[in-house]
């Protein structure tokens, strides 16, 4: 612990030498504990990813069928559930107590929540690795896992619910104790959004896993279609937690790395509210070609009330780069349309991670997601490789990449350590997001040929009939594997860097940041957020389209790509058999 620590104001804390925030010692410890378990899950999920990847690459076909489905279950649970949610709990503790200058209001309760999450996770791991839960992470009823699997998920969810409730309590306490002035920061506002969605999501989780647990011990019936409906109320809503948390991290990283400003609080906050409004409808786009629901229900729900959540993402996709451009321009990088981008700190892993997260999420994840989530287009996408292709671009090169990027700031700020192997850390986002970009695009294209997801052998050896995909599919699966391996290397570097920094890293003495330019990201040295003129004045612009011309150009390129891909898919659909 460094800085002017103390127990002033009743709770043990330190003063962050970079930001001047009062950091509760318990907040430090809680963030650390959640981050460590998140990293362990990432490691397990990452090893599973390589094994699954090398099996789907037909030329290698590493695992046998039993272990392929087993390890695929392990990959989905560890990545999507354990890694992401433990990390999000750490973000909530950061966006609450730390950013609001406040104590953790219920320390013991928060630790209890953490404990429940760990116990739940261990139960699930035990069931999966011993072959008692070969049901994939969706566990569609009536496929059956042993009861402790469902119980583990329930405990994990209850733990997460507790930590989320403590975050909400922090808001009340901080307000009452007047630990901040004005309105909560936008990043915290994003955190609140994520927390509200988390509560709604976890309620769906309880609504499905408790009956399913009871079904698994034989005391209740669960309808397979209702299961899919409610399960995706959990499964997709939780993706909206990821999106909200990721966007909050975007605003955070923008400020830290290039002094990004908030263009307009009203616009950004309204966009966050749009995420909350329609969240329970999210389940629908997994059920577009299901027998249980009619067209009106499908259209209304898959569009989240006429695409209002898509609108929200398109707004953030504009305001985040626009805030970066404006921040750069305010600090004097005014040259041309894209001078601010050319002069940006590309060697700062926080910055490159941010840029990749925004662009890959938008251009690949967002466009494919909206397209495949269209009622009819889903006919040519459902359960093909197009789906994992899509969501690795959202939750992996989007959310996970943003979380990784912010870690490079959390290590010096929270852990007070220098970054180990900083040169490797600098290239890490390029490997991870670049590899994932190749991976998800190749996978999406392979899916266009109808290649199924979650499938051990697409050469169908030993099946009753032959199926032979176009030779392009072999090539695409090989490219998928190579992209995935590059990304896995990036993931491995991330784990190496964070583990070595946190546990064996050299301390970062307060106030001596300038001496360690070779081992901490540049934002902490130049503190761009502190150099923004504290005025209302806007940077001068020779362009008629306002103070952020570069961003305007970029978003129109995005829109053109979106329109092209969207209508190309309608065209593709029109070649299929007539069905209605």
């Amino acid at each position, binding site marked *: 612990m460094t800085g002017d620590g103390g127990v002033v104001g009743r709770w043990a804390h330190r003063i962050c030498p970079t930001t001047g925030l009062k950091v509760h010692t318990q907040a430090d410890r809680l963030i650390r504990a959640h981050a460590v378990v998140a990293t362990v899950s990432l490691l397990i999920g990452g090893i599973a990813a390589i094994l699954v990847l090398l099996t789907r690459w037909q030329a290698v076909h590493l695992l046998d069928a039993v272990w392929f489905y087993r390890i695929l279950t392990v990959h989905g649970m560890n990545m999507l559930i354990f890694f992401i949610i433990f990390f999000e709990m750490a973000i909530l503790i950061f966006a609450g107590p730390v950013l609001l200058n406040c104590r953790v209001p219920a320390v013991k309760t928060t630790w209890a929540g953490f404990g429940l999450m760990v116990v739940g996770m261990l139960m699930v791991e035990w069931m999966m690795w011993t072959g008692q839960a070969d049901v994939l992470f969706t566990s569609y009823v009536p496929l059956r896992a042993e009861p402790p699997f469902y119980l583990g998920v329930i405990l994990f969810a209850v733990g997460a619910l507790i930590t989320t409730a403590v975050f909400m309590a922090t808001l009340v306490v901080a307000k009452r104790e007047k630990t901040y002035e004005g309105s909560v*920061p936008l990043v915290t506002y*994003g955190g609140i959004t994520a927390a509200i969605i988390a509560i709604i999501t976890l309620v769906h989780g309880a609504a499905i896993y408790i009956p399913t647990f009871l079904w698994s011990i034989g005391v209740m019936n669960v309808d397979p279609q209702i299961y899919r409906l409610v399960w995706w109320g959990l499964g997709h809503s939780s993706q909206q937690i990821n999106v909200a948390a990721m966007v909050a991290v975007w605003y955070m990283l923008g*400020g830290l790395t290039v002094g990004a400003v908030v263009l307009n609080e009203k616009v950004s906050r309204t966009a966050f509210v749009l995420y909350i409004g329609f969240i329970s409808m999210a389940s629908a786009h997994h059920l577009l070609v299901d027998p249980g629901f009619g067209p009106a229900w499908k259209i209304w729900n898959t*569009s989240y009330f006429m695409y209002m959540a898509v609108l929200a993402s398109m707004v953030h996709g504009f305001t985040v780069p626009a805030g970066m451009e404006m921040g750069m321009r305010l600090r004097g990088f005014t040259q041309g349309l894209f001078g601010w981008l050319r002069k940006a700190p590309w060697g700062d892993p926080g910055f490159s991670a941010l840029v990749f997260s925004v662009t890959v999420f938008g251009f690949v994840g967002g466009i494919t997601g909206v397209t495949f989530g269209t009622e009819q287009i889903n006919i040519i996408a459902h359960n093909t490789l197009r789906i994992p292709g899509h969501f690795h671009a959202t939750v992996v090169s989007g959310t996970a990449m943003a979380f990784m990027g912010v870690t490079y700031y959390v290590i010096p700020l929270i852990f007070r350590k220098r970054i180990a192997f900083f040169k490797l850390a600098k290239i890490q986002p390029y490997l991870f997001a670049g590899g994932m970009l190749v991976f998800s695009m190749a996978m999406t294209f392979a899916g266009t040929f109808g290649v199924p997801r979650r499938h051990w052998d697409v050469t169908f050896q030993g099946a009753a*009939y032959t199926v032979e995909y176009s030779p392009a599919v072999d090539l695409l699966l090989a490219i998928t594997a190579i992209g995935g391996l590059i990304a896995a290397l990036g993931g491995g570097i991330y784990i190496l860097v964070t583990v070595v920094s946190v546990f064996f890293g050299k301390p970062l003495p307060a106030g001596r940041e300038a001496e360690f330019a070779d081992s901490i990201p540049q934002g902490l040295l130049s503190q761009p957020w502190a150099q923004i003129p504290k005025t209302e004045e806007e940077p001068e612009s020779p362009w008629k389209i306002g103070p952020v011309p570069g961003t305007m150009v970029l978003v129109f390129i995005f829109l053109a790509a979106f329109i092209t891909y969207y209508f190309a898919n309608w065209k593709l*659909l029109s070649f299929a058999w007539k*069905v*209605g």
Partner: protein
Amino acid sequence: MHHTGFESAQGVWWKPAHKSEKIWVAIAFAWCMVLFAMMPLWHLRGGQNPSGIRARVEPVAFQDRVNEFVAEYGVTDANGSQVLENGIPVVQPPPGSDVYMMGRMWAWTPVLFLEKNAQYTLHLSSFDVNHGFNLYPFNVNFQVVPGYDYGLRVTPTQEGEFRIVCNEFCGIGHHLMIGRIFVEDTGLPAPGSEGGAQ
């Protein structure tokens, strides 16, 4: 006052948005409306919709329907006995008829012989767990859920050999679960490309 996203917003922050922000929000909103309108529009004008006739059905009852269907339209050999392919009955229903297809760990029953450009009501259901109907090589996908009958009005618009690949994980034999549909061109005229489908 300019500030970052991690600083508390001070004073009056609900001021009017920038012009460029307004432009983008308006364009994005208009695009969202296009996205929304396309779906009902395709129901009116397009030929591929996942609507179908939907009903609940007990797995055993559905199995009975499949058996009746095989008994009625099954292909028989010279001795009058049902033709089997890999142990699965082969069926040739007339155009316009109701066709029943059941997924069961790990086979699709029956094998179908259909006519190009004829319309059938293809009823899909499962006897046990979820399965996935994926038509190879034309990539048409539907979820097959036990307890539910999904009656899709299907018109094969290409002739030739087709496969049904199961694309929902259904246990250890999942990757072996393949069915067969054969479509013959009997000279029926192509359906109008516009309208008709729900």
